[in-house]
């Protein structure tokens, strides 16, 4: 037996802010025994070429996702509301700053 293996460690989702002024985006995932090691591993794994100035790690188990099976009904209510887009409205030609 080789004892504990990394697969027993929880999975973490890694979010990287590539530079100041931008939001964190999902970069990938990794295994780590705790949050501190997850951060260190994330630095080595996802920012070897200065891809980030800030990292978040979140336990994958803490993520609640919408169900792919229900994706159509779940997002349907947005589909029939074109009046939420500025292009829905007809404005006479020549009107400026609108």
């Amino acid at each position: 037996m080789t004892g504990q293996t990394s697969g027993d460690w929880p999975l973490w989702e890694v979010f990287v802010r590539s530079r100041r002024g931008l939001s964190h985006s999902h970069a990938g995932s990794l295994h780590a025994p705790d949050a501190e090691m997850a951060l260190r591993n994330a630095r080595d794994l996802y920012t070897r070429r200065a891809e980030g100035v800030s990292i978040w790690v979140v336990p994958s188990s803490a993520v609640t996702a919408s169900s792919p099976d229900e994706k159509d009904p779940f997002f349907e209510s947005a589909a029939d509301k074109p009046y939420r887009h500025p292009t829905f409205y007809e404005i006479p030609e020549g009107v400026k700053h609108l």
Partner: protein
Amino acid sequence: MTTTAAPAATAGEAVATGQDALRAAFDAAVAEDTRIEPRDWMPDAYRATLVRQMAQHAHSEIIGMQPEANWITRAPSLRRKAILMAKVQDEAGHGLYLYSATETLGVGRDELLDKLHAGRQRYSSIFNYPTLTWADVGAIGWLVDGAAITNQVPLCRCSYGPYARAMVRICKEESFHQRQGYELLLALSRGTAAQHAMAQDAVNRWWWPSLMMFGPPDDESAHSAQSMAWKIKRHSNDELRQRFVDICVPQAEVLGLTLPDPDLRWNESRGAHDYGEIDWSEFQEVLRGNGPCNEERINRRRAAHDNGAWVREAATAYAAKHGEAQA
């Protein structure tokens, strides 16, 4: 649930109809080139094919650390040593991206490593060749990584989202690998007569195994047709191999090195290079475990895993002690 099956329909029929709808959604996503994501329904065979291919790919990355790591302590300068360490570290990173992507298909990391260690999953046969001289580090970068890039760039458009995303990241990093190898060979080729001969010898030994990296000819490739239909694969083995040969010929000229194939010549009518017969019996032998380094590579991998056990145990104990582990 809001199924509106006719009252006469049995439960079994309702399930079958549900499966048909799921399969239709999958087929449509593949046809429209939208990606399949982990929680989408997919055919069992699609999932199994991806696990096989992605696991083999991940294993290749981490086994691929060995032939080059062999030269880290003997790199001829601090510059070359730093480059080589960065490259080997990248290979570890590529392995981890791919293991993560494979895990999205419902297989555990441990299971994948166990299968590698037990010889039940493969890695690329190219890594069963030895790195005899420093020039081999250059030949691996130029030819082996070059062949890998030719194979991998189309995988950035693979139908399975997590695999495609991992490949985008990997391809960006592979470009450095190939260029450092080319530069290394160029330095040797333009060096002393002995250095030039060393570079030529390395190219002579790595050329044919690199061509084998694209896999068997199209008419003998077991998985190709289905993988192309699923858009896991975008080009055939022979098509990619031809592309690689055509790319390498002018690059070899600039290097001042020759490629070890007397039949290699430009074919005006095809607009491509003709090249000699590949010795597929050698490929089959290496696949069967009879390459020069098969045993050494897998033993080294097992030892690295076993010798690293205390580090994993210590990290787990530390996390438990500080109460931060998230089960």
